[in-house]
């Protein structure tokens, strides 16, 4: 089967920066894939190369089997990109922009699908508004709409939820999820790791132009039996000193403790009881993607 996205030995050098230092990545059709990494890791450069906006210094990239440079027309027809910047064309309304975009992809009479996109993105009542007059969150949704006019098999979203409020974020993800269920491959970059954790079946982490982790989200989260115990202490109480080595994170009176396995739990509870601190809340959970991310990024810089 053809991979939706196939990247081999991809490098990008700018005058003073080696932005991508040999990326190999294969994304299968139908995946919901997250590309994570700190600012400057090369995520946007990678996406720009897939979109044909930037040319690679070495290596190759294919969209649905079409080389982005040598078969660019086919590659672009199969790709929808939601850019990170909040760009818009101040001359035209939402509907005009969507009709133009449809036309650029060679589609005429695309209004039925345009209406469906507008509806799903809660933009119907703004269809005839000039894009210049929209709020940031609406501009973002127009960008999503523009990327979808040609029903691309592969959809790339570069930080699509930055600046979008919670309710609309839910609407947006519900729509993207449905597209994914219908068979569209989704490639997502985001700084909200909980989004990636909830949505994506596979994750690649990028750091300084290299892939430093690539696995199924579940595998990353279940690496080992490590768990987290969140305890909220009464405001006046301190965490017993003996538990300090387990402390992962503290926010006010909420303490997150490392739990190597369930057997650890008994010892911790005993310590808490004997030290006489008042526990007002307690929650046991898996480690989350944010912790995995921070650990992997930390390991790399130690190496």
């Amino acid at each position, binding site marked *: 089967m053809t991979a939706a996205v196939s990247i081999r030995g991809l490098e990008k050098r700018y005058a003073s920066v080696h932005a991508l230092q040999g990326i190999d990545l294969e994304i299968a059709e139908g995946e919901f894939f997250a590309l994570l990494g700190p600012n400057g890791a090369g995520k946007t450069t990678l996406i720009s190369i897939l*979109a*044909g*906006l*930037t*040319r690679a210094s070495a290596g190759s990239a294919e969209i649905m089997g079409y080389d982005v440079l040598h078969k*660019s*027309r*086919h590659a*672009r*027809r199969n*790709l929808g*990109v939601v*850019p990170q*910047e909040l*760009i*818009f*064309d*101040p*001359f*035209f309304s939402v509907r*005009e*922009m969507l*009709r*133009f*975009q*449809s*036309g*650029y*992809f*060679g*589609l*005429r009479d695309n209004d039925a699908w345009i209406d469906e996109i507008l509806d799903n993105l809660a933009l119907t009542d703004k269809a005839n508004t000039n894009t210049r007059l929209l709020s940031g969150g609406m501009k973002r949704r127009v960008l999503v709409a*523009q990327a979808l006019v*040609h029903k691309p098999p592969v959809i790339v979203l570069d930080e699509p939820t930055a600046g979008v409020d919670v309710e609309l974020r839910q609407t947006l993800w519900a729509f993207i999820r449905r597209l994914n269920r219908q068979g569209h491959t989704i490639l997502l970059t985001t700084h909200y790791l909980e989004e990636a954790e909830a949505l994506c079946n596979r994750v690649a982490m990028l750091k300084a132009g290299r892939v430093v982790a690539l696995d199924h989200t579940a595998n990353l989260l279940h690496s080992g039996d490590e768990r987290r115990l969140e305890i909220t202490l009464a405001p006046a109480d301190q965490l017993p000193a003996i538990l300090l080595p387990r402390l992962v994170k503290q926010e006010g009176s909420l303490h997150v403790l490392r739990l190597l396995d369930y057997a650890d739990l008994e010892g911790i509870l005993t310590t808490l009881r004997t030290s006489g601190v008042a526990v007002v809340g307690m929650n046991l959970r898996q480690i989350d993607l944010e912790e995995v991310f921070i650990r992997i990024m930390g390991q790399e810089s130690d190496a």
Partner: protein
Amino acid sequence: MSGFPMLLRKEILRFWKVAFQTVMAPVLNALLYLLIFSHVLEAHVQVYPGIGYTAFLIPGLVMMSALQNAFANSSSSLIQSKITGNIVFVLLPPLSELEFFGAYLIAAIVRGLVVGVGVWLVGMVFIDPGLAHPIWALVFAILASAAFGAIGIVAGIWADKFDHLAGVQNFVILPLTFLSGVFYSIHSLSPFWQSVSHLNPVFYMIDGFRYGFHGISDVSPWHSLAVILPCTLLICLLSLQLLRSGYKLRT
């Protein structure tokens, strides 16, 4: 189906939606030139026998306005899109460089011709300059607008900010057009400046265009065509090549 017709449509709508600035303003500009120069010179200057100065001036102003606006259309569209970032809207779709070039070029020609016709109609209010050979007039108008539209594409791709574009406009486009015989016949110049004028391609655009109106010109329209046609093709090829190279657009 190709994306070219839609890109062309968008490029034409882009200037038409703000026609007040992109069409009315340059027509008013030309009208001011016409009022001032014809007031000062009508009684004193006769370039060709039997043709008054105002009648002589009108085709020059039409051509000057057409090519300045052809340049302005493609260059300002590109620089605006680059600066606001929405150039990606036309870089992401499967449009070939030729389609991209064709849409920007034809929109520039359309703007040039619309403004040119506007100036001509306003001029007609004062005096009918005649139209001895309409085909010649049209051929030169299209070729000249194409050449300047293509220069506008090159300038729009090259420029990183509006200042750069203003530089090209003030130091290249304006002197080339003003010193091309819009306001005078080069026969009134000293032999030295006459030969300098013969090196300016815009001189042939205006001279050939004028032939279309008056049936008289400084050089034969065939001669002008022989100069303009290769010039236009050359600048178009250069512009297309620049697009194909991805220069500043696909880094």
